[in-house]
């Protein structure tokens, strides 16, 4: 798909990418002469944000999930989450970063290439673009920040088939899934040339005097504009990972729990959480870490970063109260698990729009997401009888879809949103772009549908392959004994 710049207003803030190589920039000498240098404040904030996102996985997500399973499976969940984080971290620097955030040549719409495999060409002096002209951060920071997203996304999936999946099969599945589903998805949504590359190319067009030079400069600008992932070029907005992280993981989880089948005793035995205290601790760590996830996705420390921070705060609070009160009204009691589930649902929903919506819009989104996810986790799941153990689909899939679609609405300046940004109208400056709510919502819907199909079909194929090769599920007697003893040879609690 080709794109006609500047016909389409460019959406600001798709968590962006590195500087385009200087060879693509028309006036190489001039570009190098005033190449921006990283700001220490931006760099410091992004390093902190990166560590915060890692804290979401371990220990946040691990404890959130761990508390929800039975005593006999506690360690299996902790082990799975941490092993996934470690595995993906290594894969990311080996080839994941390159597949997500480099030009993929003929396949560039869908996936990057191997030019930065093993971090080739990345060193302490290389920089990555942000969303502001003339602002860059060290590429190591950008790479590490994006690494934490790649680490947590497959870890989210394990909740859907907790208490029954074979560890070896899970590890093989995760390697395949991040390689074939996640890295391309991140490329499709977040890979672009960056504001400076676009601005420089557009300036060159404006500066060219004779027709031949103008045509050459326009060709360069078109190449820079086209050097982005497919969903980015559609104009799909995803500030911090509604499609890439949450819908992607939620759908993979739904497919996984359907293909593995229900746990023994599902719907008959007491399969209650063993330690909601730990779930509360985990959820609180997730909330805190999410400030790094969402506010960090602005890639620099400025007012939009603070906006994302505030939105993350209030959307989670609104959704927690929403679930709490809806459950209180429907089931008779206000539960802790309901409240923390609501908080996570709100955090998921605000993710794609955290830097686009205004705080009041975020509260409304949180209220809707809390109630909707409650409905899916209780009524819909019980009606269809699928055993999504820890509600990965009900919270991350549903919350992500609601948030991704709502992004198209809440970005509206009339609703307190930031509006879209056009980097080409005045090259070198980010100015307000044209925004059409119906068109933007349609683009968001298309992005959601593509993510559902991409993750759903891809995950189904990968689960099937791993099932044929290794078997996805532990034998019945091991499931009854518990995965801690059967798979890992240890138990969480000895007393």
């Amino acid at each position, binding site marked *: 798909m080709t794109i006609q710049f500047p016909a389409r207003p460019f959406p600001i803030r798709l968590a962006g990418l590195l500087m385009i190589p200087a060879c693509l920039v028309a006036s190489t000498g001039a570009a190098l002469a005033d190449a921006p240098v990283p700001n220490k404040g931006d760099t410091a904030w992004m390093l902190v944000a990166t560590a915060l996102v890692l804290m979401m996985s371990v220990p946040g997500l691990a404890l959130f999930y761990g508390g929800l399973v039975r005593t006999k499976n506690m360690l299996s969940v902790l082990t799975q989450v941490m092993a996934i984080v470690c595995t993906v971290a290594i894969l990311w620097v080996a080839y994941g970063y390159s597949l997500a955030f480099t030009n993929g040549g003929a396949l560039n719409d869908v996936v990057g290439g191997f030019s930065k495999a093993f971090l080739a060409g990345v060193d302490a002096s290389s920089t990555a673009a942000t969303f502001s002209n003339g602002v860059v951060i060290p590429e190591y920071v950008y790479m590490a920040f994006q690494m934490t997203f790649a680490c947590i996304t497959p870890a989210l999936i394990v909740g859907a088939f907790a208490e029954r999946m074979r560890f070896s099969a899970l590890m093989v599945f995760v390697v395949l899934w991040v390689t074939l589903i996640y890295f391309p998805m991140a490329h499709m949504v977040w890979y672009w040339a960056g504001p400076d590359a676009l601005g420089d190319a557009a300036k060159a067009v404006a500066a060219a005097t004779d027709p031949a030079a103008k045509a050459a400069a326009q060709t360069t600008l078109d190449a820079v504009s086209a050097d982005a992932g497919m969903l980015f070029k559609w104009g799909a907005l995803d500030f911090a990972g509604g499609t890439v992280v949450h819908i992607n993981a939620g759908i993979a989880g739904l497919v996984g729990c359907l293909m593995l089948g229900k746990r023994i005793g599902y719907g008959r035995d*007491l*399969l209650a959480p063993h330690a909601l205290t730990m779930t509360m601790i985990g959820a609180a760590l997730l909330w805190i870490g999410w400030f790094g996830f969402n506010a960090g996705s602005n890639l620099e420390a400025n007012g939009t970063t603070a906006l994302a921070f505030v939105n993350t705060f209030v959307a989670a609070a609104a959704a927690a109260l929403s679930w709490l009160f809806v459950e209180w009204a429907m089931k008779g009691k206000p*539960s802790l698990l309901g409240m923390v589930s609501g908080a996570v649902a709100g955090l998921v929903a605000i993710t794609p729009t955290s830097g686009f919506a205004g705080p009041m819009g975020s509260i409304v989104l949180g209220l809707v997401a809390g109630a909707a996810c*409650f409905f899916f986790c209780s009524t819909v799941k*019980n009606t269809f009888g699928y055993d999504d153990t820890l*509600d990965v689909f009900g919270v991350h899939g549903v919350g992500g879809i609601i948030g991704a679609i709502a992004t198209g609405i809440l970005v509206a300046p009339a609703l307190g949103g930031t509006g879209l940004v056009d980097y080409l109208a005045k090259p070198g400056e980010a100015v307000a772009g044209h925004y059409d709510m119906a068109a933007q919502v349609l683009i968001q819907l298309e992005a959601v549908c593509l993510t559902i199909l991409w993750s759903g079909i891809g995950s189904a194929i990968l689960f099937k392959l791993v099932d044929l090769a290794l078997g996805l599920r532990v034998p019945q007697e091991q499931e009854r004994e518990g995965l801690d003893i059967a798979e890992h040879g240890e138990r969480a609690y000895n007393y």
Partner: protein
Amino acid sequence: MNIVMAIIKPFKLEQVRDALSALGVHGMTVTEVKGYGRQKGHTEIYRGAEYAVSFLPKIKLEIAVPAALAGSVVATIAEHARTGQIGDGKIFVMPVDHAVRIRTGETDSDAL
């Protein structure tokens, strides 16, 4: 000799123990158990998944006493474990053939 076995509500344990001490009972064995009788269980709800929990936590006391004391022990437990609500528990009295104190080798009533 008798074993008095009583199933009582957990929060009544200290009150019963104090009353039995005053009566001259100087030892007992306590176990945390679950069970049900006429008292119904409760419902637990986790994200909309409802579970009927019919086994409720109780405390089981086992007290070995000389036969002469068994009646007053039963009466004391019955008095102090009582709330008047369903679920107060039950008391059983069983005969004991033989008893040994392991440290000294004393037997029967000397061992109690």
